[in-house]
């Protein structure tokens, strides 16, 4: 009979309507600011720089690998220099332009020093684009514990590997130089 | 799977066209391109009735532009085979495949827009991606993007 198809279709919509009240999985909405979806561990949004103890002592050695690998070239690194003008193994400037970054995660993959990782933070809307969205070193640095909290599985693996590497370098270079243990991998 | 050597021999026998192997395709002289297409399309053995892909490559060093066609046979389910044709960079004219294969229409317009290849016999050869008043062919290797819009370094 003509019209049964339409009626069947309407039955589907009305069933979906009542499901929101009766069925356990009926309501699909997550009321965002109050409730949140469970965070996926691998979720990547923007990069952060990690440090072990002090915020001034980043793991980053300003090797410039991530800046060169970054497909849209959004990372700017300038090496720090000591009083004699000798380059140090830390960045003086480390800017990431969040208005260009495409969240691809290639910096994280290519970093040989476990220094740059992708964060979960996404509530970054700003009124101004110039100062607010070009992130400086200070705004990018996060403690390693933060990383351990957001990505426990990866953190465990990295910790184990780093511990192994540290013992290896310590065994190879004896006596170990005072600073090298943490940053040479 | 069609062997390119076999096609090359066949083309030489039936059409008398001298072709050469180049990479993954056959380099065909420009003047005989349409004959080759017609032969491949109508020959009972090949029946290449489907143009899968068309793209231009700019060889700046040789001062040539190469057009690569990928043909496929929908009846025999064989292919694709690559057919290549080269043309001079300055005087960039290639016979159009659109009368034989409708599917080449937009792809030829794209090659015209971005590489400046003029397809002779194309009924509606206009820019497709850029606007009409745009100057230059932006995908050519020597195209310099002059734009005041760009962030300029301090001297």
């Amino acid at each position, binding site marked *: 009979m003509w019209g*049964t*198809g339409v009626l069947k279709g309407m039955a589907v919509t009305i069933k979906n309507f009542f499901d929101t009240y009766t069925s356990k999985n009926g309501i*699909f909405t997550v009321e965002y600011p109050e409730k949140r979806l469970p965070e996926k561990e691998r979720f990547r949004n923007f990069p952060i720089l990690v440090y072990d103890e002090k915020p001034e002592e980043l793991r980053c050695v300003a090797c410039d690998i991530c800046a060169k690998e970054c*497909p849209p070239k959004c990372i700017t690194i300038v090496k720090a220099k000591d009083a004699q003008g000798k380059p140090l193994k830390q960045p003086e400037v480390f800017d990431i332009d969040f208005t260009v970054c495409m969240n691809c995660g290639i910096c994280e993959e290519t970093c040989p020093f476990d220094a740059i990782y992708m964060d979960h933070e996404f509530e970054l809307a700003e009124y101004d684009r110039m100062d607010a969205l070009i992130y400086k070193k200070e705004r990018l640095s996060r403690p390693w514990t933060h990383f351990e909290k957001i990505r426990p599985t990866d953190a465990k693996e990295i910790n184990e590997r780093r511990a192994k590497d540290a013992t290896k370098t310590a065994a190879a270079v004896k006596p170990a130089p005072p600073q090298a243990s943490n940053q040479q991998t | 799977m069609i062997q390119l050597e076999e096609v090359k021999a066949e083309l030489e026998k039936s059409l008398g066209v001298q072709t050469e192997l180049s990479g993954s395709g056959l380099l065909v002289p420009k003047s005989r391109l349409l004959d080759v297409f017609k032969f491949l399309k109508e020959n009972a053995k090949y029946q290449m009735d489907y143009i899968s892909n068309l*793209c231009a490559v*700019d060889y700046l060093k040789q001062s040539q532009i190469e057009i*690569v066609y990928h043909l496929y046979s929908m009846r025999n389910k064989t292919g694709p085979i690559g057919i290549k044709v080269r043309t001079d960079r300055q005087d960039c004219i290639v016979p159009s495949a659109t009368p034989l294969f*409708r599917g080449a229409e937009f792809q030829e317009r794209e090659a015209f827009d971005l590489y400046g290849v003029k397809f002779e016999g194309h009924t509606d050869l206009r820019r*497709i991606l850029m606007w009409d008043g745009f100057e230059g062919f932006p995908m050519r290797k020597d195209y310099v993007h002059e734009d005041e819009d760009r962030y300029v370094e301090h001297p």
Partner: protein
Amino acid sequence: MTNTIETQTRPSLSTQQLEVSIGPQHPSTHGVFRMNVVLDGETIVKLKPVMGYLHRNHEQLAENMSWLGSMPYTDRLDYFCSMTNNIAYALAVEKLMGIDVPERAQYIRVIMAELTRLVNHTALVGFLLNDLGAFFTPVLYAFREREKILDLFESVAGSRMMCNYMRFGGVKLDLPDGFVDCAKAIVDNYPPFLEEMERLLTKNEILMARCQNVGILLKDLAVNASVTGPVLRASGVNYDIRKIDKYGIYDRFDFKVPLGTVGDVYDRYYVRILEMRESLKILRQAFKELSAGPVISQKGLIAAKSPRNMKVPAGDAYGRIEAPKGELGFYIVSEGGTKPYRYHVRAPSFINLTILEDMCLGHKVADAIIILGSIDIVLGEVDR
């Protein structure tokens, strides 16, 4: 009423042709697409597509970038199906480099490709109905299912839409714990959803009246115009690259290629529904056969660690796969360096548009909208 009688009795009433530009900001052009339409009354006598409003110079950017660097850019071609775009590009480069992909990675690729097909076709059915005037309800249902699959993608690759998951010679990371169970649950819950969708739509008289015998594309013309994907299959041409090229490990799976008979909008809709069922079949087999092992070959791993230094032997290659929208091909020319010399995308939605005018001629304006919807274009891929 008197007016119509008058027009019927006066045969010589002349009408003027009207030129209308639909888009680029139009709710039903699926993005920034424009159609210049010449109308006689409400009947289309000429239609010229205008594009380029999303021409982002993808090809030129890729030619100035390391080989892996353009992998995240391929995500943004067809932003519904980033996984299949990744696979197509990886396939083309692997062909040139001659590296193998480990068994487990092959299975992961198949799983991701078929999940992507589900995502794309589900969303398309929703949007097609939106174009028909069923405002938002089918989109709501479709996006509800889509979100569940996007959650899977996020747990695997880290991003909902822009996955950047494939690497040359494998995939980026292994599947996380519990992924297969989650995916199995989604696959098991999909047939009821499809049935619901079908009950809502397939036999719906309004849908049939609007879609049947509209925008018919005949077999010969479809082949001549290089149409691919579900649009071609709806016209009755058996052409599925998964079956023909058997790229990856598709020869191991048992699935059918659904074909249409008439080649109208309705067939294109129904072919997609049937394809989703076949995808579910492939997924079930893949979950059964998925075995442990490495997910990326040694050579690929080295390349992924330092993309800047990855060199590809000189030559050219054309890699193609059956993306949800049709044949997605990458034509790549290498001069042996760290950057592609030429990088060309054979975009299915771009080439499928060639035939839009022929399909629309003689139909009404409202039909042009659903014909465009049934071709299933994504502007990121049309303009690149």
